[in-house]
């Protein structure tokens, strides 16, 4: 690469970072200094917050917490519900999906039922679950479980069904036991698709946990934004929403990292 092309590349890389940053900076300036003047019709200026107000709210939340719980406790409560419901769903959904995908007959009994349930948004189950189990921890974990389970199960089934026929013939050729076939041929072959379903299920679970906390909770990020919004503490709501996004992105990156390590052999 010649010096001038290198310079051009460096320039364009710099431009690629600077251009969007400058847009953000201008937007923040407008938000800070123009919006409080009441230029947005139909919404009271104080309900729109300001960047500096958000910074203050963030520091307040970080030091004093909210509603008698530290900020970290809110994050931890939401994470705990999500991870518990998700883990149970994965622990049951993946093995069950593998078996149902592999044994056509067993699958034909159960899969249409799960296929019918999946398109129903998990949020629609919340009132039912509240009637069944009340508003305690179990109800929230159960809603997460419902959300993740159907995704993981059907994703695993679909992964198993796309295992190349020749892999299965190889297993039959050398008389692998059924267990060995499932563990050493079907599972690894279906793993990329299973992983996609796990990642989607995790993202959905995180969205659903916040929604379930909106309804009834004393701690959790969903509770935080719901409760802060009731007293018009808009800047705290912003912080809560941003935190929900941040945690969601972090979880997704974690999944990607694990996926890259575990599935290094895929797609090259």
């Amino acid at each position, binding site marked *: 690469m010649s010096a001038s092309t290198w310079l051009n590349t460096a320039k364009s890389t710099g431009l690629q970072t600077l251009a969007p940053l400058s847009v953000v900076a201008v937007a923040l300036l407008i938000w800070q200094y123009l919006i409080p003047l009441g230029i947005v019709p139909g919404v009271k200026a104080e309900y729109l917050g300001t960047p500096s107000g958000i910074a203050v709210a963030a520091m307040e939340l970080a030091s004093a917490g909210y509603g008698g719980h530290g900020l970290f406790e809110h994050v931890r409560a939401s994470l705990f519900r999500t991870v518990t419901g998700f883990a149970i769903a994965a622990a049951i959904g993946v093995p069950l999906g593998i078996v149902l995908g592999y044994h056509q007959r067993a699958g034909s009994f159960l899969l249409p039922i799960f296929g019918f349930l999946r398109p129903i948004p998990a949020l629609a189950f919340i009132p039912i679950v509240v009637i069944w189990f009340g508003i305690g921890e179990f109800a929230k974990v159960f809603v997460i479980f419902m959300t993740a389970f159907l995704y993981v199960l059907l994703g695993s089934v679909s992964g198993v069904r796309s295992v190349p026929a020749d892999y299965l013939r*190889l297993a039959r050729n050398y008389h692998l036991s059924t267990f060995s076939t499932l563990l050493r041929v079907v599972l690894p072959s279906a793993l990329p698709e299973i992983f996609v379903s796990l990642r989607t299920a995790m993202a959905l679970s995180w969205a659903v946990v916040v929604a379930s906390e909106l309804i009834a909770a004393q701690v959790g990020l969903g509770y935080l934004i719901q409760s802060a919004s009731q007293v018009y503490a808009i800047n705290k709501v912003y912080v809560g929403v941003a935190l929900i996004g941040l945690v969601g992105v972090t979880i997704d990156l974690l999944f990607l990292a694990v996926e890259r390590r575990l599935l290094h*052999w895929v797609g090259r």
Partner: protein
Amino acid sequence: MSGQDMGAQIMGAQIELIGASKTFGSRTAMRLALDQVSLSVKAGQTATVIGPTGCGKTTILNMVAGFTHPTGGRVMVNGRDVTEPGPDRGFMFQRPTLLPWLTVFDNVAFPCRHGHGLGRPYRADQIEAEVMHYLARVGLGDARDLHPHQMSGGMQSRAALARLLMAESEVLLMDEPFAALDAQTRLAMQQLLKQVIKSEQSLRTVLFITHDVEEALLISDHVFLMSASPGRIIRHVEVPFGKNEPYRDLVLSPAFTELKHELIDQLERLVPG
């Protein structure tokens, strides 16, 4: 009955099809894919089935492998009817079919580590030694830790061949294993297969499927030519050329060229249009 008489004539056959037929489809839309195919391959010999696309040559191989069953007639290996797949008949697929999450070493070791009934040693150190032996045999001694996606198509074919040999099956069933390779790599694989089969102490019977006449003549003792819809064997050629002749001398000899073109002409007449 005439099929059984034919079987009685050829003693010691390891692979034998006696009037084997195969019909596909439902009762309303039946299609006769194979029509009373009889052929036999003696122990230690290599036979090739050649024919136009859709003539049912892969079906023959699948029946011998036990992946599918004849709807009429018999398919036997070592005098016994084939009822299911088994490690006594190693199968090499059209594509290398290496498991992409395993290294070359683990792929080659796979049948011996996780299979049953191979009649092979299962101790880790024995498997290690034999995998390395077969990897060296196919020229992959340095590739043991590579994953399939890190290898060329030719190397993947070599690894698949090593896995096939590793299981030490008496019968090797090969379904156009080199068809997807470029011409040069294909030639190298044909030579390798020939060498390997002839140099091993155990007597291996090979049933090979191809649509490449030259490949058929180069590697086999017998060539069976098939017609399509329904699949029938229309010609049996006992290949008259020496197995140890150098490739160049062989393909340039007038006898080879003549037989090759005769078979190609016959094949071309079978393909409509």
